[in-house]
């Protein structure tokens, strides 16, 4: 996009009359390197310099495999639950007017504002077998606290704003004329929703889903209280990294950390590809 000056030489930036580029750019890069890139480099180098045998042994530990399954499985389930309920919430907040709508709208960001340790101890209290919701569920024979279901509940809470806040602008940007046209042509409400509305908001829904999923995989504070942290059953990946550190197994911790880092980047890549594909498809249809 930039870089070639009129004389064919290489330039970092295009000329501008505004001052301060060197200072702002230099400070940004230096600060980014010190705070973010340096610790991530330490993680990558520490994991990469480990003997291959040790890396494979760490990855093959049954406890690690169980934690991977739980972290990714629960995050996937929670993101799916959020996709459904988040869509309903975003729909209600953008399409209907009712008393308390603005309060409800402001409440969506609570998981961003509430420290995770606080939501963690609150959730385990609510969903424990003596808790407000837990005792009612216990009557139905459902145990939530200290099971994988509890992990999922915590990840649902954490993921709510990601789905709702991504869907809201997409729903608001949708041209009402499209839905009205479908209705005037005799489409039923659900037909209009499935054939007109849903395709238009699918990229936003997928983005919100993946953001919630990625956050869920790495979440620690709100999960560890309700999880119970039983080895092989309710241990999540971030907890396993902390356990390795407490055992002074720095290499093992770095290997698990790098694995999770790579998996999060793969997820972000997937969502970017999905969105590009969706945009192309919509572009062709339109």
């Amino acid at each position, binding site marked *: 996009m930039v870089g070639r000056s009129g004389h064919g030489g290489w330039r970092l930036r295009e000329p501008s009359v505004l001052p301060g580029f060197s200072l702002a750019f230099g400070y940004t890069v230096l600060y980014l390197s010190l705070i973010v890139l340096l*610790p991530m480099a330490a993680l990558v180098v520490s994991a990469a310099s480990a003997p291959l045998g040790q890396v494979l042994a760490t990855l093959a530990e049954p406890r690690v495999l169980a934690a991977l399954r739980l972290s990714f499985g629960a995050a996937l389930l929670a993101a799916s639950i959020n996709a459904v309920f988040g869509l309903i919430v975003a729909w209600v907040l953008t399409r209907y007017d009712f008393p308390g709508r603005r309060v409800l709208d*402001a409440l969506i960001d609570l998981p*961003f504002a509430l420290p*995770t340790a*606080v939501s963690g101890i609150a959730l385990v209290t609510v969903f424990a077998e003596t808790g407000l919701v837990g005792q009612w569920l216990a009557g139905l024979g459902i145990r939530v606290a200290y099971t994988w279901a509890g992990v999922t509940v915590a990840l649902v809470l954490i993921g709510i704003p990601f789905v709702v806040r991504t869907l809201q602008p997409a729903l608001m940007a949708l041209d009402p004329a499209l839905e009205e046209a479908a209705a005037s042509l005799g489409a039923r*409400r659900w037909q209009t929703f499935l054939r007109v509305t849903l395709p238009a908001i699918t990229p936003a829904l997928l983005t919100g889903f993946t953001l919630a999923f990625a956050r869920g995989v790495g979440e*620690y504070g709100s999960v560890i209280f309700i999880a119970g942290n039983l080895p092989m059953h309710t241990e999540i990946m971030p907890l396993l990294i902390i356990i390795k550190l407490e055992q002074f197994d720095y290499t093992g911790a770095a290997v698990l950390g790098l694995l999770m880092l790579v998996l999060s980047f793969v997820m972000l890549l997937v969502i970017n590809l999905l969105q590009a594909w969706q945009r192309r498809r919509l572009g062709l249809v339109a």
Partner: protein
Amino acid sequence: MATAGPVLQEHGRSGQWRGRLLRGLLIGTAVLFLGLMLLVPLATVFAGALARGIGFYREALIDPDALAAMRLTLVTTALVVPLNTLFGIAAAWAIARFSFRGKNVLTTLIDMPFAISPVIAGLGYVLLFGAGGWFGAWLEERDVPVIFALPGIVLATLFVTFPYVARELIPLMQMLGTEEEEAAISLGAGGWTIFFRVTLPKIQWGVIYGVILCNARAMGEFGAVAVVSGHIRGLTTTVPLQVEILYNEYNAVAAFALASVLSLLAVVTLVLKTTIEWRTGLRGRH
């Protein structure tokens, strides 16, 4: 469309009734979902805090360890928020005011901490400055504690709150454009004069918005700080970590008392954030 008239009307009459039912059903589902996942846990914190009366609540808050934790959290936040605000302004000035090579890469790298598990952030710093880390021995020789001390806690908090201000300011400054700054230049204003007299007044609400979010996250961070803190009571325990310690010691009421302070902070954050959004038309982009 004469033929469509009667069809629409009939569609309309039963449709109106069904529409109202659907509306009620969807609003009910949204309220129930958010009530269960957000309001009930929030109410539980305050109910739990006051479970043994106001006297016990007061005592839990003026406990020396609790006060030390509050002091540490305030000191950490007082260091982290200004540093990340300064960075956010510099990054936004470089990215929104100039065209240069690698701009997209830089923007992606700035957002990276949002995609990384806080536990992995903490792990990166342990691998750098911990006993077995890259600079561990060097720091130990000079008797400069980083891990299990204030510097480590500050660094971990800097990492997780890194993008908050930059993320608000970059799109805001891109939207505002550079015309006014260029006009100021042509009138002979210097770089700092332009920044303080032209740019800053335009972006002040964006800065405040970013600072509020950064502050809430800095005070509530758990996972990253848990890795580097060492949980030394009265010394390296922030408020969220103190909540964890109290809860794990089966002192749930004291844990909830401290958690209620953090929850109040979260509620104040939401109120301020929403007020700014209404006043300025700014909208959260999370």
